[in-house]
Structures are given as structure tokens and as C-alpha cells.
């Protein structure tokens, strides 16, 4: 068999497996979200209803739309700020020699390995004394700090692969480091930058513990906590609501991912990378 053929078969099988693997549980989620009874594979029958979707949007006490809005604002701010902060740090570490380069990089990484539960008490006190409890900054600031190592390391791995010749030449022409960073490195690093933004956005979107402890109601609470609030007094789990809410909540993320794909894959930049 020719190489092209093997490749084609592998690709087809791989793609099929990938889609089934990733989507089956999600399809099941959607099935539960439009089913009147979550146990339709057991004793109940499958009755299609859109009640769950209607309910979560219209029942005021669930505050679904408030939580969604909060999540979007918080995550977008975090993703953008964090990506910029991380990119500038990654640029410095990959291009400039300075004392503490390695300790700082490793230190930032090491700090991110602490379990969140051990940090939450301190953050609560801090936010309380700053009067920020139940506001967006109470979530945005810790989220940036908590996701910046991920962004930093993704971008470090990416930027360190961009050849130095380009920026060296610009600097020789008298451009400042800031200008080189903005005009040359950032555009070339776009694929890395966008995958970092995407992953950070999702991380912030999904964070639970900080959001639970640092907010007290729907004026700043985010989706995961909002969904956790659906649960009833004795642990009744309104599966339909939960699944409908998560399906709706994942829409912005999927859209974002689709939009960003264009930037993640940039054939033009390939020539600029060292081999």
C-alpha cells in the first residue's frame, strides 16, 4: 500500500474515533437536557421537551443569564490581561538575559501547583479588607495570577521557537524592545497567543472554588457556581436544568474556539520559524 493511502485510512479512522470520543458524552448531555425524565434509559420513556431551556432562562431565581454574563465578562478580561502579561514575561525570558531568569520561570510554575483550597482563606481575607467581595475584581485578580503560569509557559515554548534574527535586525535598526515585542513577536506568536487565550478563557470560565467563596450572589457569581446552586435541599439533582445550562454555557466557548481557529492556524508565519 502506498504511503498516501495508509495516511488517508489512518486519518479517516482517527477522525471518526476522535469525533465519537469527544462528542458522545456531550450528545448524551444534550439528550438529557431535552428529555423530560433524566432516567429515560431506565424506568421512564424518552419524552422530548424544551421546558428545561425555557425554565432556566425564564425562572428569575436561577439567575442563569446573570451568571452567564458575569462569566463572560470575567473570563474575557482574565484571558486578555493574562495573555498579555504572560506574553511580555515570556518574551523577556526567551530574549533577554537577566539574573533570576530560570528561578522566576520555575518559581511561577511551582507556585501554581498548590491546591486551591489552601489559598482560599487568605484570598477571602484579602478581598474582604479591600472591600472587593462579590465584585468582578475579586475573581479577575486571583484568576489572572492563577492562570498566568499556564499562559507564560505556553508562550515561552512558542516564542523560544521563533528565530531571533528578526528582532535582532529590528533592534540593530534602532527599534525599542517594546516596539519589537508589539510589532514583530506578538504577530508571529499569534497562534500560541490565541491558544493561550482560549485555554485561559476556559479555565476562568470553569473555575469553581474561588468563585464560590469570593462572591455572595448573582451580581458577580459565575456559571459553575450558578449551576451548583440548582441542587436541592436533599441533594436532588435537577439533571435537565444542569444539562441545559451547561449546553447553553458551552456555546460561547465553542463559538470562540471556531473564531480563533483561523488565527491558531496561520500558514503565513511558517516561513518565519526556524527549523
Amino acid at each position, binding site marked *: 500500500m502506498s504511503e498516501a493511502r495508509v495516511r488517508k485510512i489512518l486519518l479517516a479512522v*482517527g477522525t471518526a474515533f476522535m469525533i465519537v470520543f469527544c462528542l458522545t458524552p456531550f450528545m448524551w448531555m444534550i439528550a*438529557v437536557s431535552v428529555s423530560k425524565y433524566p432516567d429515560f434509559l431506565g424506568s421512564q420513556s424518552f419524552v422530548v421537551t424544551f421546558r428545561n431551556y425555557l425554565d432556566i432562562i425564564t425562572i428569575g431565581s436561577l439567575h442563569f443569564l446573570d451568571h452567564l454574563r458575569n462569566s463572560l465578562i470575567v473570563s474575557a478580561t482574565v484571558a486578555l490581561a493574562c495573555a498579555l502579561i504572560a506574553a511580555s514575561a515570556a518574551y523577556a525570558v526567551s530574549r533577554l538575559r537577566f539574573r533570576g*531568569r530560570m528561578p*522566576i520561570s520555575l518559581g511561577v510554575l511551582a507556585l501554581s501547583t498548590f*491546591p486551591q483550597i*489552601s489559598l482560599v482563606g487568605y484570598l477571602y481575607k484579602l478581598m474582604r479588607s479591600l472591600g472587593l467581595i462579590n465584585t468582578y475584581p475579586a475573581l479577575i485578580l486571583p484568576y489572572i495570577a492563577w492562570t498566568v503560569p499556564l499562559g507564560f*509557559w505556553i508562550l515561552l515554548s512558542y516564542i523560544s521557537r521563533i528565530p531571533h534574527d528578526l528582532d535582532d535586525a529590528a533592534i540593530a535598526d534602532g527599534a525599542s524592545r517594546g516596539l519589537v515585542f508589539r510589532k514583530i513577536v506578538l504577530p508571529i506568536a499569534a497562534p500560541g497567543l490565541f491558544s493561550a487565550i482560549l485555554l485561559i478563557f476556559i479555565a476562568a470560565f470553569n473555575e469553581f472554588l474561588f468563585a464560590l467563596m469570593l462572591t455572595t450572589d448573582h451580581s458577580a457569581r459565575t456559571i459553575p457556581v450558578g449551576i451548583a446552586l440548582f441542587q436541592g435541599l436533599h441533594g436532588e439533582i435537577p439533571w435537565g436544568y444542569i444539562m441545559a445550562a451547561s449546553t447553553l454555557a458551552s456555546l460561547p466557548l465553542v463559538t470562540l474556539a*471556531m473564531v480563533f481557529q483561523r488565527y491558531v492556524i496561520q500558514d503565513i508565519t511558517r516561513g518565519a520559524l526556524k527549523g
Partner: protein
Amino acid sequence: MPARGYNGRTAYIFIAPMLIVVCAFVLLPVGGTVWLSFLREVTYLPAKFVGLGNFSRLIRDENFWQSLKFTAAFTGVCVPLEVVLGLCFALILNERIPMRNLIRATILVPWAVPTIVSARTWELIYNYSYGLANYVTQAVGLSDQPINWLGSPASAFVALVVADVWKTTPFVAIILLAGLQTIPEGIYEHAKVDGAGLTQRFLKITLPLLKPALAVVLIFRSIDTVRILDLIYVLTNGGPGGSTTSLSLLGYKYFNEGDFGYGSAIAVVVFLLAFVLSISYLRATGFGKVFK
């Protein structure tokens, strides 16, 4: 000004924002946690400095060793699976397949669903009487009796692995995909002309050039797996019989019951474990060269 000479001031300006946020919101609480790990800090007892007392207690604590074993096994199984699968996904997505953009977005779905929800989804899938898993195994004829997925230590372990791999493979794929973008097409063409086959090209070109991205993926996946909490909290809460208690879950319990000293000591162990793993990945992938 030499382009690659010592360049402290400029560098610190670039790096300052990151250092400030990390110090204020991570370094200080981490310092507090480390300090607590040397105390007997129980909400209703007077605080007392006990030196390494909490750690020597850990060494004698059977539950700690059980959790450590579980966490090590879980990390050892999940991370390689996720990386291999994620690499396959990234390679496929890097090809010109039909509806590439749509497919790229859809494989992100598992990562995009909040953990608290995906854990619940798996709880429903593994449900004994009306879960999807039993429905499928029975429909395909793999088993004529429903299986109690979370019922034995071994099957609960597998169930957790599947749920974790499903959830995090897209994360791996996205980072590796960005890494693949840094490999110029031209190199492959050269190799093709030189008569290198598919496997050879993968081993000789793709893998070496992907090392930095692989290092990042290995590090962050290992960190997250070593401190895994939510998924286990929802699916097994450490059962059956405590066999799936991760270190983080153990620590979480102590934080929750009011023993902050012992909980902090466990947090410190989680940190050490994750850190040692991270360093060894950096070594193994030669990523340290960045700092040369």
C-alpha cells in the same frame, strides 16, 4: 546595546506585571500555607508550633500512603494516555481534513464543559440503573448484567481514568497543535525527497521539534492530575472503601473538618510532588536549553 547581553532593567519591566500578580495572589497565600504546615492549627484548639510534626504524622498515616499510591497510579496512567491521544488528535487536526475548523472547535467541547458539570455527566453515564455505560455494554452484548462501575476499586479507577482522559485530551491537543504550527512544511518535503517514511519523519522531525510543547503539556497535565479533586469528589468521593482518595481529596477533607495544619502539610506534599515531576519533564525534554 548588545541584543543578547545582560539586560536586567528592560527584562524586569517586561516581567514585572506577572511577578506582581503572582506575588500578591499566589505567593503570599502559599507562604501562609507552608507556615501553617508547621503548626497544629485546629479551629478549636490553641495554635501550636510543631515543627515537622505534621509531616512525621503523614509518614505514619496509612491513609496518606494509600492516597499517595492512588495519586501516583492515577497520574501514571492518565498523563501518558492523554498525551498520546492528544498528540494523535493534534496530528489529525494539523492535516487538511474536511470541515477542519468545525472539527477543531468540536473537539474542544469536553474541555469547555465545566468540570463540575462533566463530573456530573459521568456520574449519570456510570449510573447503575439508567446510565449510558450499562445501556451500551448490555446492548452490544458485552455483559448481560448491569455493571456496578464505581463498585470495585479497579473498575472505579478505570471509570475515573476514562472521565479524566475525555475531559483533558482536548487541552493537550490544542497546545500540541499550536506547537505543530511551528514546524515548517519545508522540512518534511526535504525528508521526503531523502526517502524518509511516515514513521521516520514523525520520529526524526515532528517529535524532536515538538519537545517544548510536549514539555508544557506534560507539566500542566501532571500538575493537574496530581492535585485532582472535583472529578473524584463528585464521582466516588474517595470510595469504595477509600480506595480512590486522591491526595487533594484527603487534604480537602482536613481543610473542611477544621484541621488546617495537617491539610496544609498535605498541600505541601502535593506541591513537592508536582514540582519534582515538572523539573524532570523539563530535563527529559531538554527544555532547559531555553535558559542557556
